[in-house]
């Protein structure tokens, strides 16, 4: 067995994004009832259909039970002890970035997300969400020239109400699950993307989510619509300050791809994971789902999950269109007392659909890292194929790695292949690398990086670097 103390030292790297921005915020009172929902809706000046959508979801949520099937051990959440709306105070309408509170810009600068004009050198448009509201969206004019709409969902409700009304809740219905119902009732902000027919989005789009208040939950909602023959690559990043309390993050992401459209959705999740004793950290209970509605459409999820005390997340694809394609590439790293229950669902409904799943789990410390996935071939999914690969790496003898693949087929003319393996940091490999003059830490990083390569290769260029940085946070050294 590898010298565990050394490995643990490597894995123990402090959380760099744990600072709090001292900024005046507008918060509503704690608690959740119909009035809270009406108040949120009123603050956001929403049309009636959206308020109705929220209230209906709330009614549904009240009848539902919090899911416990994943066996995640956490203290019961008091839903009345959460602030459901918190926003930094600023002028009513912002016409340019110059008017954004400099403290906020500074916060995002510190996080490595440049919002100010002079720093927007990289070819990525950013929507920055701070607690419950979107602060700024960059490159909007350039995107508008191509007909691409990229704005906060609150703005979209005002300016593109028809699209919101048509698509919101069509992929993840309010009644889908407990946390999706909660999100539908109280969602505050998030990003909206619309790519018109035939347009290849000229730059990568990115959202950055920042939780700043310790007592408010974040309930963002993202909706991406790719019209016929369009394509877009969307990146998402998340951080939060260090608090002793657990903060709830229950997001919903809906993707819709029409004929020949393609959406690539990449996430680097680095919410605060709690301290070594498991105190504090974000509860990341997220519902992400894409609908490949059109023929030959494609939705690809790639994720690097390194943060959160508890992650409960299954980015899924509903493959309805003929010959549509779903992909899922994931790296999940857990340490200390973190728990990650993540995986995907590939539901093959249309004929000739194809899906690929590559999941890499790394568990260290006392953490629990589980892959839970569903592959289902419906009765009409003739000529469909799935390939899944789930690998786990265990560091130390206290960590746990589980694999729960659910496989169901109702179509003889389809093929499903699943394979999973578990390995540890091999002493032989370490010895080999060290005997060639490679430092211990670097050798571990190299091995972890090699283990994750299949997934890192799928991340967009701009994000691959960030993913590397994040893994390096946890596994010090030159990962990648």
């Amino acid at each position, binding site marked *: *067995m590898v010298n565990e103390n050394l490995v643990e030292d490597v894995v123990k790297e402090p959380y760099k994004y744990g600072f709090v921005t001292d900024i005046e915020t507008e918060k509503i009172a704690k608690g959740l009832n119909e009035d809270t929902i009406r108040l949120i809706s009123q603050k956001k000046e929403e049309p009636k259909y959206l308020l109705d959508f929220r209230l209906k979801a709330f009614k549904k949520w009240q009848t539902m039970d919090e899911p416990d099937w994943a066996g995640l051990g956490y203290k019961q959440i008091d839903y009345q002890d959460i602030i459901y709306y918190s926003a930094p105070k600023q002028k009513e309408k912002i016409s340019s970035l110059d008017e954004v509170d400099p403290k906020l810009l500074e916060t995002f600068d510190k996080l490595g997300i440049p919002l100010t004009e002079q720093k927007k050198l990289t070819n990525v448009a950013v929507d920055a969400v701070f607690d419950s509201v979107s602060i700024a969206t960059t490159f909007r004019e350039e995107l508008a020239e191509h007909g691409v709409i990229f704005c906060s969902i609150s703005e979209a409700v005002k300016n593109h109400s028809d699209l919101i009304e048509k698509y919101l809740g069509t992929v993840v219905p309010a009644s889908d699950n407990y946390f999706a119902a909660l999100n539908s009732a109280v969602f505050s902000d998030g990003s909206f993307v619309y790519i018109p027919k035939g347009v290849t989005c000229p730059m990568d789009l990115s959202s950055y989510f920042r939780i700043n208040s310790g007592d408010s939950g974040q309930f963002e909602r993202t909706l991406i619509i790719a019209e016929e023959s369009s394509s877009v690559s969307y990146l998402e990043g998340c951080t939060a300050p260090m608090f002793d309390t657990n903060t709830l993050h229950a997001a919903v992401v809906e993707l819709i791809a029409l004929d020949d459209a393609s959406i690539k959705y990449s996430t680097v999740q680095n919410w605060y994971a709690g301290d070594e004793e498991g105190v504090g950290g974000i509860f990341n209970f997220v519902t992400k789902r894409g609908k490949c509605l059109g023929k030959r459409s494609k939705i690809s999820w790639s994720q690097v999950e390194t943060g959160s005390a508890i992650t409960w997340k299954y980015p899924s694809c509903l493959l309805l269109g003929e010959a549509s394609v779903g992909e899922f590439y994931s790296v999940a790293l857990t340490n200390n007392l973190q728990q990650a229950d993540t995986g995907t669902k590939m539901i093959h409904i249309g004929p000739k659909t194809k899906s690929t799943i590559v999941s890499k789990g790394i568990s260290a410390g006392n953490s629990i890292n589980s892959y839970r996935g569903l592959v289902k071939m419906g*009765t009409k999914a003739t000529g469909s194929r799935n390939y899944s690969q789930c690998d786990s790496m265990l560091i130390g003898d206290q960590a746990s790695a589980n694999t729960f693949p659910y496989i169901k087929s109702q179509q003889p003319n389809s093929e499903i292949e*699943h394979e999973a393996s578990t390995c540890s940091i091999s002493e032989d490999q370490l010895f080999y690398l060290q005997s060639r003059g490679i430092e211990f830490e670097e050798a571990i990083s190299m091995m972890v990086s090699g283990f994750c390569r299949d997934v890192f290769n799928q991340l967009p260029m701009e994000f691959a670097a960030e993913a590397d940085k994040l893994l390096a946070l946890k596994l010090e050294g030159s990962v990648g």
Partner: protein
Amino acid sequence: MEIIEKIKNNKLIDNQTEIQKICLHKLQSSPLPNPKSELWRLSNKSKFSDFLDYSINEKDPKFDIPYPKNSQSTIRLIIGESYQIKIIEENYSIQQLSEDELDKHIKEQISYFDQNENWSDLLNLSLSCTKNILGLKINGSKIPPIEIFSHASSNSLNAKTLVIFLEKNCDIDLLQVNLGEENSSLSQSTFFCLEENSSVNHGVVSYGENRSNLLNSLNVIQQKNSEYNLGSLHFKFNFARFEIRIKQSAGNAKTNIKSMQITKKDEQISTYTKIDFNGPNGFLDQLNKSLADDKSHAIFEGSIIVPKIAQKTDASQLSRNLLLSNLAQIDTKPQLEIIADDVKCKHGATISQLNEEELFYMRTRGITLPEASKLQLSSYFQEIISFIPVSKDRWDLLDKLLNEK
């Protein structure tokens, strides 16, 4: 489900033995398994109630073993027939367990039972009267093959229990045959204890007739350096569940499992396995095959549990499935739960139909499509059948499977 009402009201059996009392008591708090639990959620409710719909049979009519003995010396036993077994030869001995030994062992097992996970065993032990519990203590080597039969007669629910102690350095070939007559239900629980350095080739062949049902549960405890090889085959049941629970109590043991279930018409057959490594250097090689045709449903759920103590475990699990009809369905869930870091564990699963390229190749050589399919199926079946002991010479399992309508 009259039987469940009887359990609730404690009116199931007159003159209950102590074991029956304990099990009934455990069942009374939740007479039915939790339908939402992973172990039961896929079970067809109406078929499961078919299983429970028969009244309990305590008087077994005369049962004739369907196959004649061949020249090979085989020891044949029927659970439910009263005989005194005491075979003492130069190299080996086979003796019936005394009532005290049986009681002690079963009670110890029950103390570990989980209401939901061991529901089938609890039901079995609640129903099984003393006559229907066969306990054997086997010792020595060069033991002739043993065949043990369980049988369910028509229009009744039958419970049979088998307890086998394999003493140190003993090795045997044992074939267990479970037969269900038309419209019958059989609850079969088997408890196997392998002492150090013992080894067994265990075959389980279960098949029924029209509308017969089966709950078959197999609990194996393996001590150090023991080897347990299981080959099993289940087919022709309206509803059947085969639950395998194996515990390598101190590691350093070997387990090989090759199991197969074949479903046709509207049958549902499921296999659940749980392999618990409770010590280091454990080994597992598991293959489960399913074939689902017509409107049937085949299920496999296998879990491998490797706690911290089980370092150097080497476990692999493969689920291979053939889906032959548009209306049939297959569910499979091979799962791993690992805490130890120095282990080799892997699993795989595939679902497909017969290989088209192979069929095409055979057809270009002048073999007709039905013949080519049959050839492919026979090689698919043969891998499992050849692993079932004592069956090769006279059980004609392959013919049975290929020619079964």
